[in-house]
């Protein structure tokens, strides 16, 4: 470990920092090294075999895998506080401010709905007995997250991976500076590096955004109930958060600039939006906030939002307790010294282009996870990529990460699971005459008794006619969409065809069985409305 720069290498042998170099020079060691010829380099001249910058889903998976093969690994993880001052522990976005708290709060909202349904099934209690405590929920969620943070620390220590809570940035070839929250700097060198720094929420760039608005980074540990909330954005983050906040009984409005869930199948996206609207979420479409002001202080306080229509003609105002910005996420690549080592990034997006082996343009530097250009931003993808990379680097493996047909789920109040192509992309790639779309509405049995939402749950598969009616797109809108989709994604990986699906006998009575009896095509224009079993 060095404590000052420059860090000098001669003939690939690490001399050390300024003080060590001066000393070696005085002792004539440097001159001697310069005079030696040939490939005399010392294998263990670096502090570590691998330094991982970022202790999230990808970084932790890769570091633990590399340690399995006896490599000396250092993980640097550091959370720059949000404008509101929020920070969190080891584990990255998913564990702390993403998937985990999101799913738990989504569950809290679903349980509220279940309580209402339960009456129809005979449960008796007074309406006014049912209340929700934001504080109780948040404390429980944060407690669980805390146990995960701790679990990761124990896991790293048991696997002999060194962890430091410090901000890592490149300062020169093979060299990184790690700064902890007290400002103390340490320098480390490694043979290889892995960038897994992920992303952080983007702000609008309008007056009052950083001072008064919160993001998903703040929401899951907010110590007070957000109250009447304006969610700005139409990403899955925006819709999932708006969804569970409304499900907990809050007054929620979503302000959308253009379309919902860009990049997802738009028919499904619109059905999700319609369902949310029918269940009390207000949508303000084709507007963007231009200013946020504080009218009243407090927890949560009161904010005034001024917004302008996208065609510029109309200006509106609204008052909310909380404004939650979910307008996108930016890669954390601009302040980690990538220019010092020559790692190319996409200047506009900040993302890092890599080869299909996750290697950057600098051979000893790799990258995985949300920072990657053109790859899916999902925890399991980062974990898989990280593990396989470590195996290729240190265990002689050759298997690369397969980014095709990765299943996903959006946990909006009406959940959406998908695997493969959206209808638009399939149409574009294969042509309308070459794809067959089978679809149907379905009514979960559990919703019949409480008279919930008939002809809202929806199933759709897209088949490639020229390839044996291979299923190339799977879409389901309904409860437990993630559980339903996971199994089918394995089938798709095995080359599932429509005939095989038809030959599969359904399980009754469950939602997923609809996929074994799909018969109406979009092409036929046939009726898909359900009347019950």
């Amino acid at each position, binding site marked *: 470990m060095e404590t000052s720069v420059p860090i000098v290498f001669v003939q690939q042998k690490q001399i050390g920092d300024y003080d060590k170099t001066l000393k070696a020079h005085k002792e004539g060691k440097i001159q001697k090294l310069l005079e030696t010829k040939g490939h005399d380099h010392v294998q263990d001249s670096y502090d570590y075999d691998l330094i991982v910058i970022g202790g999230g889903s990808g970084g932790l998976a890769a570091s633990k895998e590399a340690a399995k093969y006896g490599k000396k690994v250092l993980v640097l993880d550091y959370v720059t506080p949000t404008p509101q001052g929020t920070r969190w522990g080891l584990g990255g976005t998913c564990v702390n401010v993403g998937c985990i708290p999101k799913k738990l709060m989504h569950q809290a909202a679903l349980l509220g709905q279940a309580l209402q349904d339960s009456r129809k099934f005979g449960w008796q209690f007074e309406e006014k007995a049912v209340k929700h405590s934001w504080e109780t929920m948040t404390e429980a969620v944060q407690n*669980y997250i*805390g*146990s995960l*943070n*701790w679990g990761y*620390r*124990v896991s790293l*220590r*048991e696997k002999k991976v060194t962890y430091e809570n410090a901000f890592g940035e490149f300062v020169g070839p093979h060299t990184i500076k790690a700064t902890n929250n007290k400002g103390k700097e340490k320098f480390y060198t490694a043979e290889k590096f892995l960038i897994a720094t992920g992303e952080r929420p983007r702000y609008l760039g309008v007056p009052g955004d950083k001072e008064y608005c919160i993001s998903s980074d703040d929401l899951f540990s907010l110590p007070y109930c957000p109250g009447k909330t304006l969610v700005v954005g139409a990403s899955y983050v925006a819709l999932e958060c708006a969804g569970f906040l409304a499900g907990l009984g809050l007054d929620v409005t979503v302000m959308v600039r253009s379309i919902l869930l860009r990049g997802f199948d738009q028919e499904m996206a619109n059905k999700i939006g319609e369902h949310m609207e029918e269940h009390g979420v207000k949508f303000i479409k084709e507007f963007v906030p231009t200013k946020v002001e504080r009218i009243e202080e407090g927890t949560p306080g009161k904010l005034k939002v001024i917004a302008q229509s996208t065609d510029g003609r109309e200006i509106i105002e609204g008052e909310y307790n909380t404004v939650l910005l979910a307008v996108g996420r930016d890669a954390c690549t601009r302040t980690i010294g990538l220019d010092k080592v020559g790692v190319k990034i996409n200047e506009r997006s900040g993302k890092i282009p890599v080869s299909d082996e996750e290697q950057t343009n600098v051979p000893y530097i790799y990258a995985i996870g949300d920072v990657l250009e053109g790859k899916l931003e999902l925890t399991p993808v980062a974990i898989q990529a990280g593990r396989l990379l470590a195996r290729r680097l240190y265990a002689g493996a050759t298997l690369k990460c397969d980014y095709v047909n990765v299943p996903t789920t959006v946990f909006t109040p009406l959940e959406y699971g998908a695997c493969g192509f959206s209808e638009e992309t399939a149409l574009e790639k294969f042509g309308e005459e070459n794809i067959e779309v089978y679809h149907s509405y379905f009514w979960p049995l559990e919703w019949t008794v409480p008279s919930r939402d008939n002809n809202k749950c929806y199933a759709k598969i897209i088949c490639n006619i020229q390839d044996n009616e291979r299923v190339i797109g799977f879409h389901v809108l309904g409860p437990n969409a993630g559980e339903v989709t996971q199994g089918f994604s394995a089938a798709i990986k095995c080359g599932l065809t429509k005939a095989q699906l038809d030959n599969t006998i359904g399980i009754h009575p469950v939602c997923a069985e609809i996929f074994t009896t799909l018969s109406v095509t979009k092409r036929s224009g046939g009726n898909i409305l359900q009347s019950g079993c």
Partner: protein
Amino acid sequence: MGWEEKAARGYSEFVQVAQQSRGRPVFALFSGDKDAQGRSWCPDCVTAEPVVRSELNSLPDGAVFIYCQVGDRAYWKDPNNEFRKNLKLTAVPTLLKYGTPQKLVEEECLNRELVHMLFTED
């Protein structure tokens, strides 16, 4: 100021001792009861105790270390005992930092480095 050790037997006593130490960092080692010869019925607890004790000097200043005997084997095996229900303990030995999700369970308590990490890191 250093650290202080306290003893507790059973759940109510543990809660009492922990309350008394409010405001200070509290660490607790839960073990099966020791017999007249000073041996616990829980073999892992017997192995863990010296390991934990060897790291007590790394406790932060002002910390309280509670050595808590949970009860006899039959009491411990009962799935509804107060330690399981209220403190969410799943096994003995358990070494934890009271009021946080940070804990070490069973063989983790035998790992000196992990004990050190629990005592010294945030």
